[in-house]
């Protein structure tokens, strides 16, 4: 097309325009509306008016502190659990997978092929009061005779850990897979023990994967409300549950909007602190 040829500087902008506009109008602008709404006061019957109601934020933090803390707590525990559970497996696939690597990776993402809500409902079945898991734990006296798993924080964390596990395992695998086997041979030649070689060579080299996996798991986990709704009791509810019900059931839009912003800010702060600890190089190195 001659047009593109004559306007080479224009081509990238023409290619970008539709997609970028879509994201601008339906992602950036809505965030603006959300911010605007969070500073309004009023109610659904008499309408809302914008009046820099910063009080919405303080009220949200005061009234729903427990849910905010719980979200960070559950998401944090689930992220650490996912890391501990999936690291050895990612290692195993990367170094011992051989020609089965692709197939094993397929197994790792298999949970994603089952609708999110349906696999969470499956956990409801697994952890149910007269299910196999509860009966076993009761006979081992880990749980008391009337003890249950469903409607506890354990169930919610179990669900979150499971649901976001592939987000952790995949980046771990990618970073472990890239490690040059000769590095480990060199370590062995220099009389490093297996443990030493792992701690001094493998682990540091896999750190980008750890960072990426941690973020990919923590961010969606902190905003989740499905696990708490389906596996937890009301006192296991996370901030996502509050935002959801304020928006869709109570129509208290300003409160819900301010909570969404606090959640986002909280996640950004957590990510920033984390980046500070592990170093920003790791962070940007793994960014898309």
């Amino acid at each position: 097309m001659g047009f593109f040829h004559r306007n080479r500087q224009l081509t990238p902008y023409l290619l970008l325009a539709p997609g970028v506009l879509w994201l601008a109008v339906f992602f950036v602008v809505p965030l603006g509306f959300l911010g605007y709404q969070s500073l309004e006061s009023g109610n659904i019957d008499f309408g809302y008016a914008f009046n820099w109601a910063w009080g919405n934020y303080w009220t949200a933090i005061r009234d729903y502190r427990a849910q905010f803390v719980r979200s960070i707590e559950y998401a944090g525990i689930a992220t650490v659990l996912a890391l501990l559970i999936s690291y050895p497996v990612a290692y195993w696939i990367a170094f011992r997978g051989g020609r089965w690597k692709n197939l094993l990776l397929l197994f790792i993402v298999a949970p994603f092929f089952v609708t999110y809500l349906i696999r969470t409902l499956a956990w409801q079945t697994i952890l149910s009061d007269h299910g196999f898991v509860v009966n076993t734990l009761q006979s081992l006296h880990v749980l008391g005779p009337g003890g249950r798993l469903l409607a506890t924080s354990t169930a919610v964390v179990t669900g979150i850990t499971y649901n976001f596990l592939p987000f952790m395992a995949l980046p771990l695998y990618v970073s472990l897979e890239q490690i040059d086997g000769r590095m480990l041979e060199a370590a062995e030649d220099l009389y490093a023990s297996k443990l030493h070689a792992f701690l001094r060579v493998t682990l540091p080299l896999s750190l980008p994967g750890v960072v990426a996996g941690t973020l990919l798991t923590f961010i969606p986990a902190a905003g989740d409300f499905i696990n708490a709704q389906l596996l937890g009791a009301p006192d296991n509810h996370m901030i996502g549950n509050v935002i959801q019900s304020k928006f869709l059931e109570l129509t208290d839009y300003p409160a819900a909007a301010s909570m969404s912003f606090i959640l986002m800010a909280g996640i950004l702060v957590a990510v920033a602190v984390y980046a500070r600890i592990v170093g920003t190089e790791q962070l940007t190195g793994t960014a898309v």
Partner: protein
Amino acid sequence: MSSASVQPRKPAFGALAFLRRQVLTVYSLLFFAYLLLPIAVVVVFSFNHPIGKFNYTWQGFTLDNWRYWDGVPGIRGAIILSLEIAFVASLIATALGTMIALALVRYGFRGRATTNILIFLPLSTPEIVLGASLLTLFLNLNVIFGFWTILIAHIMFCISFAVVTVKARLVGFDRHLEEAAMDLGANEWTTFTKVTLPLIAPAILAALLLCFAISIDDFVVTYFNSGSKITFPLFVWGAARIGAPPQVNVIGTAIFLVALTAMLANVLLQNRRSKGAT
């Protein structure tokens, strides 16, 4: 450190020694059992014959749930809506995403960094915030919720995934092939359709499938922007409150099998291709 690692080890026999050497393999197998357990539950309970409305405990084997997969009011309409949305959203999002990826990899232009951030941000924003902010936009503009609001939302969160997928392929792409085509007198458009497009076609297909999968599985953003329309995940959510019927497991199993088949075919194809290359 211990000198044991330097000295040759004594050969150990017996089951315990075998386990010790294979501890990682054994652990990994246990891990996969854990990972696949809920999937097995979904599949098995699609054949359950529940008494009453709760499908929690095994009561007996039946094929009726599969035979009458749409025997629950509303489930057929929900599946059709989900398929329609996923089909249209993945097509549009992949087209827009491919164009962005081409611009980002192929051209130097002002605003590149900003574009990169704009692509990255939706991926790192919690879904609930994506859904809630779109809801406030539509509410404030008095948009009627329904098919179009769901479609708009799905295209929005799919674009970034499409860009990332296609970009990954374009980065490792041999530009010499295009230069050769140009040297042979092809103009830019012919080069694009005859050389570039066929080469990135697998990535475009991958992006399409990824967007389709993400769209058909989405609950949170849809929940905020659906109005009275019900997609399949929304149907499951509503059904879960009063006890999900086994038909939900049937559809879940069917989606799982379709996705698994597609991915298996892809893995086999890749394996064959890499074998052919060596």
